[in-house]
């Protein structure tokens, strides 16, 4: 019963929702109408962005309250969160994962590496940025981006 006491003492952890982010929703986002299922694709990241994505879906930032949810299969997903500079070995899996998602589908490049290869630009194993491999609809800059910015990008997609 110590867990019950902990639940009662802790209460609500989630921070108050910030005002809705400005910005035009990318094409196709309107059809999602308040629900976005998200699949994360690590295309060669240092895992910094993954930690921030995990925080965005954790209790404090609670991205789920805006209708975004992490799912286990690209077939279930509407949004692909691509992190990291795309390595040669991950270029084809990334293409296939995005191709497996049913339309309308959106690709969000999370972090400086996914947007422009960041620290790893010109590396011998790097194929390019996420935009060089698959069409990217939204960008979340930062190294790593703060959870607020990831949540804001997801809110632009869900419109909530």
């Amino acid at each position, binding site marked *: 019963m110590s*867990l*019950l006491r902990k*639940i009662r003492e*802790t*209460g*609500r*952890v*989630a921070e108050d*929702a910030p005002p809705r982010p400005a910005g035009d929703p990318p094409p196709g986002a309107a*059809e*999602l*109408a*308040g*629900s976005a*299922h998200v699949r994360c694709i690590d295309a060669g990241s240092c895992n910094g962005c993954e930690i921030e994505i995990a925080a965005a879906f954790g*209790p404090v930032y*609670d991205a*789920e*309250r*805006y*209708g975004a*949810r*992490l*799912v*286990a*299969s690209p*077939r*279930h997903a*509407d949004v692909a969160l691509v992190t990291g500079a795309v390595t040669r070995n991950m270029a084809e899996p990334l293409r296939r994962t995005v191709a*497996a*998602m*049913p*339309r*309308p589908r959106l690709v969000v490049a999370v972090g400086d590496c996914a947007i422009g290869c960041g620290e790893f630009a010109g590396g011998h194993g790097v194929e390019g940025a996420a935009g060089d491999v698959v069409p990217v609809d939204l960008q979340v800059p930062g190294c790593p981006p703060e959870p607020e910015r990831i949540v804001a990008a997801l809110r632009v997609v869900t419109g909530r």
Partner: protein
Amino acid sequence: MNGTMTATGTAAVTLQVALVAAGAPLLAGLMRQVRALLEGRVGPGVTQPWRDLRKLLRKEAVTPAGTGSAFRLGPLVLVATTAVVAALVPLASTATPVSGSADLILVVALLALGTVALALAGLDTGTAFGGMGASREMTVAALVEPTILLAVFALSIPAGSTNLSAIVSGGIHDPVRLASPAGLLSTAALAVAVLAETGRLPVDNPATHLELTMVHEAMVLEYAGPDLALVELGSQMRLTVLLGLLASLSAPWGIATTASPAALVLALVLLALKVALLGAALAAAEVFWAKLRLFRVPELLAGSFLLALLAVTASYFLTGE
């Protein structure tokens, strides 16, 4: 049977199926919301599963290469069998035109048909996880279906019939049966069987992302768009129907036994309340549970089978016939 009785009975069946279909996503939303609040989150709101379904229906349907009719028909069979079960089971009224067919064995067979259809669909995709999920689902189903049958058999001995409407109306008119050792044991056995059948903790984790721990989710990894919407609606309806059946068998108060419209409305409201309460209690309990290791699931289900067997024995010896 005169005209008004048949009309009220037909209305009861229609409203019961409509309530289950419309309420199932709300029940799923309520359960997620309860979990979110206990975890300190805000949660997406009770109507989020309906938003998810609306979006999935608008999305493109994907037929993976190499899949055949089992994959395409699986979701339809799942929803259809569950809708028939929702019509048969006496959730709101025991006096309906189909209550004569609400046989226990038929209901369990229809549930098994839905499970098998989805397992075949999982095999049809030809992926490693689809086959693994199907194999696990059949293992669990083979242990669960006998438990459901046996648990309700214990209740059917005092009623003298395997007809669910007869069992439920017997419970309403003779409440002592519900508190008898047989009644309590079979309720406990049925509760564990419902958890396993609907893929809830501690048998299966509905929120898992780790393919190796999946049971239900592994079978449906390849579904997309409208097919996925049907699969999700089908599983949510199964949970609603089975929780409703559990409520009808263990706490049948309020279920209409006559063809009066006022009693029917009261029964529908009470049904929604009872299922919402059971769902919220289950969601709250799940916060405290961890998923059982797969090889220990048979132990849990064997335990519930034993409870059902004890219920049948107690029912046989204690009714004194």
